[in-house]
């Protein structure tokens, strides 16, 4: 029982990471109906920036904040320069462009920071959390940071005019433009925010899996799985889906298949959801009009 509880709780901790990635994916999907395959690589690159800053003597939280700014700028720039021309392009071109981005950013991470595996510091103490047998301090910190991010995002979209404008731009671009919302910039802002959320996820993952250019591959897949489970057009569903997938993955790893088939579990979850309920638990079912 103790072991089971431990698996569930640490599943929630990794689930927080997946929830963040899922949220970043859903934010971009809602606004543009594009699935950002480069999300994980953007996060990895930002995490490398944080590593570089910490390595050259910055205090952790200063590096953390600067990394968020960096991730935001990168997100906005990518949207403005590379993704923008493909806004109305067929799916095939869009996916090809995202895969291209994935390759480029992955190579850049490797080329600039080399491919050796690096330890990444955790801002939280390294011992167990108040002597708890279930969770380490980093895991508790991870859950806390994830919830903070979600609360901030919620507050931003719910209580600020800018958040309202962004929601409007995603919901109904034409009308928003008529009332003076600059839809193009709202999409770019969405990309910037998604980049920031991804960067947080990257910096929280890195202490566990160590920093290397491929570290977000499986995280991205689980993020996808979470987003699909919750419904890819529903941010809250995606967050919940991320947590559920985190727990499922941990339980499957502990009791069913072992840790060697982690990514395969993600594949099974993704295909399973898409076959049984493609719109996810909380998503809208898409009806095509003839």
């Amino acid at each position, binding site marked *: 029982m103790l072991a089971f509880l431990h698996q569930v709780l640490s599943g929630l901790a990794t689930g927080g990471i997946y929830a963040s990635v899922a949220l970043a994916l859903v934010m971009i999907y809602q606004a543009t*109906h*594009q*699935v950002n*395959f480069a999300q994980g690589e953007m996060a990895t690159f930002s995490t490398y920036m944080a590593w570089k800053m910490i390595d050259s003597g910055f205090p952790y939280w200063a590096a953390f904040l600067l990394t968020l700014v960096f991730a935001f700028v990168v997100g906005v720039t990518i949207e403005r320069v*590379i993704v923008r*021309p*493909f806004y109305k*392009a*067929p*799916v*095939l*071109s869009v*996916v*090809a*462009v995202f*895969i*291209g*981005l*994935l*390759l*480029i950013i*992955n*190579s*850049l991470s*490797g*080329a600039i920071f*080399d491919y050796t595996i690096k330890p990444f510091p955790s801002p939280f103490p390294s011992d167990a959390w108040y002597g708890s047998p279930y969770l380490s301090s980093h895991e508790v910190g991870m859950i806390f940071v994830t919830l903070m991010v979600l609360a901030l995002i919620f507050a931003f979209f719910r209580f600020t005019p800018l958040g309202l404008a962004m929601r409007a731009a995603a919901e109904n671009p034409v009308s928003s433009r008529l009332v003076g919302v600059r839809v193009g910039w709202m999409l770019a802002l969405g990309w910037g925010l998604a980049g920031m959320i991804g960067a947080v996820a990257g910096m929280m993952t890195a202490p566990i899996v160590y920093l290397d250019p491929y570290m977000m*591959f*499986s995280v991205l*897949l689980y993020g*996808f799985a979470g987003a*699909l489970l919750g419904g890819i057009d529903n941010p809250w569903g995606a967050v919940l889906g991320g947590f559920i997938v985190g727990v499922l993955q941990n339980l499957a790893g502990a009791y069913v298949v072992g840790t*060697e*088939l*982690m*990514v*395969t579990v*993600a*594949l099974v979850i*993704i*295909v399973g959801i*898409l*076959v049984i309920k*493609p719109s996810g638990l909380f998503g809208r079912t898409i009806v*095509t009009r*003839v």
Partner: protein
Amino acid sequence: MATLDTSRPAAAALFAGLSLRAWKVIGLAAVLAAACVLPFTISSYQLLLANQVIVYAVALLGLNILTGYNGQFSLGHGAFYAIGAYCTAILLDKTGIPYWATIPLAGALCFVAGFLFGLPALRLEGHYLALATFALAVATPQLLKYKDFDFLTGGVQGIVISGPDTPGGLPLRSDQWLYFFCLLWTVPLFVLAWNLLRGRTGRALMAIRDHPLAASSMGIDLARYKSLTFGVSAMYTGIAGALGALLAQFVSPDSFDLFLSIRFLVGIVFGGLASMAGVFFGAIFIEFVPNLADLVSKAAPQAIYGIVLIVCMYLMPTGVMGLLRALGHKLGRLVAR
């Protein structure tokens, strides 16, 4: 997406008294003749590269049937290439089956695998299918390494096999024989695909790609066509994988990672979607560009693929074949004038 070409100014044009069609036949014959002479004129290493290009062309043709003609996205065709390669390697390693008999078996296995994966994929469109196949590509090396399959797959070490020998009486080196063996598979496969795609079936596939709703209201059975296309596509790529295993004489999990699948995608995008000749340009590209990229930058070899993908989508969404076709039309108009 490709648009219907109704103008065809070049079709009527005559170059030196022969129609364009006749020129195409002559060109094809010349290429085939050149392909037959090639192994006697180049070094063993160059022959290996040329052979790999042919193998990739078959794999790309498989992906192009699915993605280019039928509009179904796959970021996971490396998985079918891996199944084909492992099928041949395991059969050669564990049983006494002759090497030539493993190729159709690998093809059949991949057809079934592709068909089965295509069944759930039926319900997926666009991004979702890309996602599911992306997951397949990421999971492939892990599945191949899995310890419970070790007795078959050899785990992380992979399987070493011996290449085929020249059958008795033929005055060929073994690598030259392997080249002709691959060619003997490639030519019929291309003829088969050409016949499949130019007629009723091909039109149905393209109708599904361009407007699934209209296609189904014309009486095209979407489910049947799409899942069968997935199977056929996987079969082509699987046969390519089997030939590739004979060529490399070695299979290991890490050579079938996500980047292999992405290279296939780059290949068809570069060569031209929905183009049979384009796959050769794509195959040449994905075979030789890594070497060039290594010269430019040792640290970022994959970046060049990424850049090519994005630049292609910007500047030539129809790929090399699209460019050539556009040039041909210009030329045709000039001559006709």
